[in-house]
């Protein structure tokens, strides 16, 4: 364990996948809202990622 960092923070730093990073960041931002609230925020993020990827697909 890196001194002064929680395992989740460690994971965020070691992670090189942009989607996973976003998921962790959204979780970290909303973790105090309770399980249901966090899950809602994450599913909203997934829907947003879908739209972004579809836009990219459309551009291609």
């Amino acid at each position, binding site marked *: 364990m890196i001194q002064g960092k929680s395992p989740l923070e460690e994971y965020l730093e070691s992670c090189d996948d942009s989607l996973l990073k976003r998921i962790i960041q959204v979780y970290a931002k909303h973790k*105090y809202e309770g399980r249901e609230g966090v899950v809602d925020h994450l599913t909203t993020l997934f829907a947003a990622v879908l739209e972004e990827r579809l836009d990219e697909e459309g551009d291609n």
Partner: protein
Amino acid sequence: MKKVIIEWIRPHCFRAFGECDPIVFEDQLTIFFGGNASGKSSLAEAIEWLLLGYTTRRRKGDDLSKEEYRGSYARNMQNCPDTPFVEAKIRLDDGTTHLIRRTMTVPTSGRFDDTQSELTIDGVSADFSDIGLSVLPVYNPVVTQHGVQDFIHTRPIDRYRAISDALGLTDLVAFKDALDSARSAYRNNPPDRVTKATSETRVLPSYLHDLGLEEIATRWSNQDYHLEEDFTGIISVATVLVERDVGPDIEQLLQALRNEQAKEMCRVFDISPFRPRADSDKLLQSLDKQRKAFEPSFEEFVQAAHAVLEVALTEFEEQRIAFWQTGLHILDKSVSRQCPFCENTIAPALIEKRRNQVDRAKGNTEAKKSLSKKAKACVATVAEALRILGQIRIKSLADEDVARLKAVFDRSQEALQSFLEACKQFDSTASRVCSQMESMNQRVQDLQEAAAGAQAAEIPRRAKQLVQELRGLTKQFSVAFHTYSKAFSEFEPVLRVELADEEEVRKYTAAIALLERREDVAVCAVNRQLEDDLLEHQRLVAKYVKQKQQEVLNVREAEMLAWYDRLSPGATTAFSGIEPATDRFILKADCFGNELSAPACLSHSQLNCLGLSIWIPSVTAPLSPFQFLVFDDPVQAMDDEHTESFIVIIVPYLVEQESVQVVVLTHLKRIADRLREDHYHLRHRYYNFDSLSADGVRLSGFYPVGDEIGRIKILMKSGGASSRKLAVDRIRVLCEHIIREAYLKERGCPLPDKYLVARPSELFKPLNELNSVTQKQKQRIVAAVKWSDPAHHTDKTWQVPSTSNIMPHLNRLENIVKDLGLT
């Protein structure tokens, strides 16, 4: 690595606490005794909240019901409206001290949220890292009863979370759980766009089969898309179908396919003769216009007929009129007044009469000419209406058409039957209307003849009948046509679907459907990729969690086993290890060399020990910044033997071997007393939680001797005989406390067990053995015991001593207490 202990703490309006003086902690051992709901856990949670900004109890509660636990940090009562905070003076192992304070951030507007707080160190907003402390959940120094209970008869998943908490992996595991739940929620309830696309693309694999693209069809059935490659294959097949290269524009290719499809459909069944004309509405308007034009022109016809009738009443034969006309013509050119034919003289009156008759005959001819003209106009109107009807009318379905349609329709039989019925109805109505309108022309001519034949009475009635009939016929035709149009508009798409399915057409249909739904396919493909990514992330996170668990366990497991052995030494069935698995930890037990499941085989009490063994290493870990450990009711589920181990092994080991500042909160008086007495040699403090008041927690120091002196003084103040009598009894109890405390102080341990329930007089023997108590002090104690002996109460001559008799004993004992340094 800096370590920290607590010198004092002051919760303010937090949980059960209202306003509160600082609660001083001793360096080595601080004991709190209090009944249920007296505020013990509030103190433990105050420490946890101060350090971490949350409590594990609240976290668990929020997971169960955020609504129920909302606002529970704050003591939200009328008599404590202040902003909650907890402050403490901490001392680091380098000797420096700091005042730390966590204050709840109360929003000025919006919904109250007590989960936000601000930490200040020495009055400045700061973080623990600013003073070199690495405060992490993994080192949570508060061992709560609910944290220990999680090891006893709980579901593996709950135990998994509890152990994860103890290993400091709470956030990581909660994140994994949230990701799992979010992925499931997303899969079960995808965005509308995905739901629609999934529905639209469900049929596409069968179209791919129709085009001979079997490999793509199989993959698409499994939602495995290679968008670019797959559509290149589809476009290639479609280009072959249209038999020409239409270039890269998909829309052009689609148009070519649609044209080819339409041609093939026509070959199977040509619906166009049965389709209402595009200008049908316009034609219907023209028909109505004709109908409307018919009415005034017919009116004119009727008037003309009347005119004919009028002149016909005075009509003469045409030859006679011609004869008169010739005679008058000759007369007009002659000067005589003789008839040119019979040579008789004609009276001027007769000449004038004949002249009038000739003029009227001219009018009759004109009227007849006019009637004929009007009749022609009416006939022309009806003919035009008939011509329009012919244009609007639909071709009748021949038997062979019906047979072909029946062959095409293999699904929507009902739709076909409805259409056939509509065709039949319309054909029947149209035929009848046309036939009747054709007959109208003849009837107009008949009417004309009737007028010429001076059948006056018949004309208006028959004329009105004709007008009404035409109006009725055009209306019937119009209604029937609209009914048919509606039926056709419903039927045509069904027919197209049926035709599209015909073998000759199906390839075009398939290619069109695949290309038209390429956006839906893209949505499905991108969504599938996203779901795959999420699954992969879920696996990665699970793997990482397991890896971190193993990492922590590599360090902690040996320590956990050691602490367990201290708590439960020599048991035949014992906790033997812990192993991470997916969403659970395997807790192992050993019984005569056999590996068993610890949750199933260890006793209730052993599982409580196991819980403590997992939590304690959090603080004793080398990287832990905490040099203190708070136990909140640690032995609630433990039997006497394990409780004893906790008191006589765990606590002194922590204090003396690990140099840990131990804080124990217990609802059991005997545990609190045993801790004090057995570890009297340690620097210790003992607090009592009194009953909770409306103002909050009531806490006082526990001083056995000093408290007793205080109680006697209160009794003395009341002055009554019964109070004085009770004071005498308490003096005897005071003597017992003095002997026990003096023994504890001198020997560092309580009186031997045989004196546990001894009477004060039985304590004289160990009193006499004490070196720290002078002979004079011993004599005064013995005298006080004897003076207050309850045997006096049975003596009938005994009277309740007066205050002046009691006070000397009390004063002497108070001096002894002071001299011996007892509290």
